[in-house]
């Protein structure tokens, strides 16, 4: 139910966000009252850390270059700087993409009646009856690591999925052709980190919402998503993402939205004031 101004009255979680919204308005109003007109004009308030604690006055003795310079900050006075020659470690996204490709290839082989490939750990995991029941129909791969047993952890292929059907993290270790240490963690007790692909999905849903609400700024703003938590620090019972829209990554937020990826819907949205 859209009110037309981008905000959504919503039962349940909406009440929580309504309280947060009221608190936000009250807090911002309080901040406004605390700020002298001259301070507001200068972008300062009474919460600011005292000047003497900032890099601007310590720049002569700083170990790193300061704000407004290169990112990431570089060591001041460094000489003989040479780019490192360490080998590139494979990134998580590359690893997950490869696993997904393997699953797709196995499924394609099966569909075409081709000779089945040797089962990789992801196929073994997904074919396990307990895993299949825990995952349901709608799930995403969020983690995969091959552990060789050289460290203190258990050896084998570690897999982590998030089930949107059942709102749970499903993870385990595949070793010796079977699933070990299977864990099913309800979303309100644990959730894995948000992936880039999930962020993209949440930002797009939020963008559609603001576009439908008629806010002309939305197509010129960059969207950013972060896994949301309840005010007491606990997890939500669904895959909830807080999305903010900014002119660029160094700008302040202008439009906000809470996106429930499990349900594929906007839970709340507001204009940042």
């Amino acid at each position: 139910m859209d009110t037309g101004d981008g905000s959504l009255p919503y039962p349940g979680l909406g009440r929580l966000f309504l309280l947060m919204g009221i608190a936000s308005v009250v807090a911002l109003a309080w901040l406004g009252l605390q700020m002298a007109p001259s301070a507001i004009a200068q972008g300062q308030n009474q919460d600011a850390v005292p000047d003497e604690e900032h890099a601007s006055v310590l720049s002569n003795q700083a170990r790193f270059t300061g704000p407004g310079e290169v990112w990431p900050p570089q060591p001041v006075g460094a000489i003989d700087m040479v780019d490192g020659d360490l080998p590139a470690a494979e990134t998580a996204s590359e690893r997950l993409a490869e696993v997904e490709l393997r699953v797709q290839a196995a499924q394609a082989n099966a569909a075409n009646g081709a000779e089945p490939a040797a089962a990789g750990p992801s196929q073994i995991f997904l074919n396990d009856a307990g895993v299949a029941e825990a995952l349901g129909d709608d799930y995403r791969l969020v983690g995969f690591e091959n552990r060789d047993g050289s460290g203190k952890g258990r050896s084998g292929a570690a897999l982590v999925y998030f089930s949107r059907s059942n709102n749970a993290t499903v993870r385990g270790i595949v070793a010796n052709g079977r699933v070990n240490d299977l864990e099913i963690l309800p979303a309100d007790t644990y959730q894995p980190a948000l992936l880039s692909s999930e962020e993209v999905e949440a930002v797009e849903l939020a963008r559609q919402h603001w576009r439908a609400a008629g806010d002309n700024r939305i197509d010129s703003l960059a969207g950013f998503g972060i896994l949301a938590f309840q005010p007491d620090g606990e997890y939500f019972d669904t895959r909830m993402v807080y999305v903010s829209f900014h002119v660029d990554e160094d700008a302040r937020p202008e439009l906000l939205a809470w996106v429930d990826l499990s349900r594929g819907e906007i839970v709340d949205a507001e204009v940042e004031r």
Partner: protein
Amino acid sequence: MNRSESKMSRLGVRLGTIVVAVAALASVVVGTTPSPASAASGSFGPWAFDYSVDSTYFDGLSLTDVTLNGTKMFERIGVPAMTVYYDNNVCGPYVDRLGGTLQDGPFSSTFTQDGVRWMSLGITDRIGSYIITQMYYFGENGELDLHMFSKGMQCNIRHDHYPFWRMDFDVAGSADDVLERRTSNGYVSESREFSRSATAAIDHDWRVRDTQTGDYISIQFDDGSFDVGGVVIPETQYVNNQVFARQFRSSEIEWVGGASRTLGGDNDELMTDLVVYYNGFMPHTPAEGPDLWHSTGVRLGVNGAGGGGGGGGEATIGDRVSNQADQGVGGVDIDLFSEGRSNWLDYTTTASDGSYSFTVDPGCYVITFIAPAGDSFSSGTYANTPVCVSAGETNTTIDAQLLSGAGTTTSIGDAVTTTAGAAAPGVQVDLFSATADGGRDGYLRSTQTDSQGRYSFPVGGAGCYVVTFVAPQGQTFTNGSQWLNRYRCVQNGEQATDVDAVLAVADGSARIGDRVTDRNGNAVAGVGTDLFTANGDGSRGSYLRSDATDGSGFYGYDVGAGCYVVTFIAPSGRTFVDSGTPWLNRSSCVVAGEVDNAVDAVLN
């Protein structure tokens, strides 16, 4: 190669990896199952390590199997979480877990700064609109800096980032590592799991030492001299930093909690494989804007295994010996002992102006001044002063004053504490003369420890003695016995204060305690607490005893199984959040062996 060229180069490597992945896919189709290599190996100077961005632990850029000159130092270092809290909870809270939305890296460079060659290794991640760069700096001198840089503004509200570094120490192997904190009496070992303020150690001086090799790694937090940039955290706010020690558990490699300022998993367990978490903070106000970046970090300095401990190498201890007219006295003998006077190391004699100095490695020592014949110090013929120095430090405050003609006393004493660190009052202590082989000879006298757990025996003069501690009924000392004998020889005028005993918490006992903080989570020291038995209806029964919070806000009671009420008494003019009054009663029921470390209080 400039930075953008470097990125292109890395991209090329990544593209190469993807090509390999596609090739791997083809091989899967024909029936083989190659595994992707998720970790890479690196080295720099004395350092060697593996590194990866793990997609199941999500602890950012992690280092594993870290060695220095071939000696194992760490099993794993990572950042499992950086929690974010906003004023009044208007936004968030959040848990930033690095690696899921990686923007750049791992990338590295080498450089020289202030004469030291370093290698950097890092990643940049974007979580929401926060841009976070996690860095490691390996020094050829045996230092390893862990840094976090953050910028961006998710919400226009003042907030604090709390990065949690997780360090799985395996100094010369996983066994025999102990976490030590510096106190006024030297370094104290922590054997059980705990959660404490970083300020529980003097000058935030924590270290992990292998008791077999003596190698140790200092854990230092930024003091503005090596970690300036963005916002410098004032030293007065270090109390916000926390140290957590945990027994290794594979289930706790990753972050398992929600958004929290503290760390779970504190079961008071004995630590045989030590993991240390260091939790710092970075404040950010809306007035500072999104592009002001912040930094905080931990510096790990390896001492031993070829590591120089970082910074300045050797240290200096000195000052002067004077008389009552404040004139320097030459020719006074001074001994240098290791911590606890366990080993004699060196000696010197004061110069004609009374000055002296020792050049030492970083660590803790005891300086023993020996009065010339006919003279004495206020402590007698010998004056012992413990002192700890860090690399490059010059401490010229260790002085002594001779009292010509003063009488001398000779004594033996110290204190009895519990394994929980509490004073043990009322413990019987007997003094015996000693046989030539260190056994007990004739009984001399007895005393009891005072309210602070302390005792002292004046003895007639130089000689060897045995002090016998007698544990209260049903309790034992850490040697498993109700009795503990300690052998000590003293010289004329010596006042020995190192004959102590530690009572084990017996199976039938339990413990109640926790911490008093303000609304911002800052420890409040000196808050009085009273312990009462609890009546059947939960009201207060009989008064038992009192305790006050220490410098880190902690208090505790060793009790028997049963129900109790703890009454907190607020400092003048303050109230407790839960009661709105200057008093707060909290009840707790414990069974034998249980430790209830959750009886806390928050002050307005």
